[in-house]
């Protein structure tokens, strides 16, 4: 859906993150919510009907980018800059509370 202007053939990405376990190229300055729009299958499922959703506002007011970042659930992905090796997992429906 989106592609970085820095993403050129033969040029390495700035870093690699993991989206639902899959290695994903990421660029300096972008946020977790930005990566979600590029990674296949990164939709979350809404808490009521289970519809697929992707980030909508990118500025902290819609909460469509809620995601598990390095194990922390319900994180607003648009407020978290990417970091090398970051683990990003989709949150489907109501979040789980660990036992």
């Amino acid at each position, binding site marked *: *859906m*989106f*592609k*970085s*202007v*820095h993403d050129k053939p033969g040029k390495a990405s700035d870093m690699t993150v993991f989206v639902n376990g899959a290695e994903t190229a*990421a*660029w*300096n*300055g*972008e*946020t977790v919510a*930005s990566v979600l*729009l*590029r990674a296949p299958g990164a*939709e979350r499922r*809404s*808490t*009521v*009907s289970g*519809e*697929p*959703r*992707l*980030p*909508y*506002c*990118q*500025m*902290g*007011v*819609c*909460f*469509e980018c*809620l995601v598990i970042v390095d194990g*922390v659930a*319900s994180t607003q992905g*648009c*407020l978290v*800059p990417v970091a090398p090796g970051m683990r990003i997992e989709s949150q489907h429906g109501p979040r789980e509370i660990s036992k």
Partner: protein
Amino acid sequence: MTYDVVVIGAGPAGMSAAIQLRKAGIAVAAVDEQAAPGGQIWRGVERNAGPVSAALGADYQKGATLVEAFRDSGAEYLPATQVWQIEEGWNLFLTSEGKARRIKARAVLLANGAQERPVPFPGWTLPGVMTVGAAQILLKSGGMLPEGEVWIAGAGPLPLLYATQVLGLEGRIAGFLDTSKRPGLAALSSLPGAWRDIPGLLKGVRWLWDLKRSGRMVRGFSDLHAEGEGRLQHLQWRAGNEQRKVRADVLLVHEGVVPRIHETMALGCVHDWNSDQNYFSARLDQWGETSRPGLFVAGDAGGIGGWLAATLSGEIAALGIARYLGGSPDADSLRREAGLDERLSRARALRPFLDALYPPPAEHLADEVVVCRCEEVTAGQIRAVAKVSAPDPNAVKAATRCGMGPCQGRQCGYTVQALVAEVHGLPLADVSFFNIRPPLKPVTLGEIAALGDLEEA
């Protein structure tokens, strides 16, 4: 930690105010949600260079100077930090890196800007549909360009600006669904002073002409639907008696911006209804002070005026705060000498024209459209409840859960207000907003518990 002033937001207004306050020797902390200063308008301005910076244009590049001055100002900068509660006195409860804490201040300046006006329509929750502002943030953050069949729908200066930026980076936009009132988007480009960025503007005008020729500049349409299985695949609309359908991978929407009001609402400040642009904003005195002494607002958070007006209102609020704290008996003369009021009224000169050109949309909302994205409440459910309750959005909220999700009514508030007004046949101004209470942003119970005994502290 106690400061003289806590500034919330490090965009044009917050940075300008912090710089000014520091010049007066006042101890300032500037709290911001983002990881770097600049606000949404100048997001990534310290990092972006080369073609991205060039495409973002001259107004964007101007932010670098202010950001540098802010960095050098001596204000304590608290980035990547959310404010989730403000108590009079003033106590501010913050969270960053998963830890909550409390700081204190003698005065507070809210400079937390605006958000895009949420405008629900059928299919607006589909993956692939997002706001123009969101797409522009993606461009500023990681140089992201939309791919495939990209459509823009809406009105206001931002869609044109964004389109010219995308074109400047060899991106492609398939078509534009212009919802503005005549004379339309093109008219704006002929306005002196509307755009300082002439090469970019010409690009935009060329683009509009191309679209018109190819029939992909759509005006006077209705019933826009975004459709697809699990993601956006098509757009449909009606033009006259014809139903049109196009392939679409990305739809970017924009219907103007509205001030952020959750903070002032939660603090019970007096608000006024802006009937030109249909939003509430806190009532401010000539120094930007709200009805709660010591609480100030500057920039778009106090009413939409754009970045230049925001920097000036930030400077004025800084003088007002210095005056409030007793440190600046000469605030009036400083204000005069700097010509702040003349400059502010020049910066706002275009606003009445823009407000008239881009009135808030008023298309009838179909019953099946989801209004509350979090709790997935439809317009039909809201109407059904509104019919049997008081003309009060809080009654709708109580009966439907609309506005109870994590966004805390930021996406559905004005739509619920409009539906309640519609059902009861009342003017919008006679219907209030949701009751807003902390937390202003979701915060974990663990963080709150770890604050310890606040009464003893």
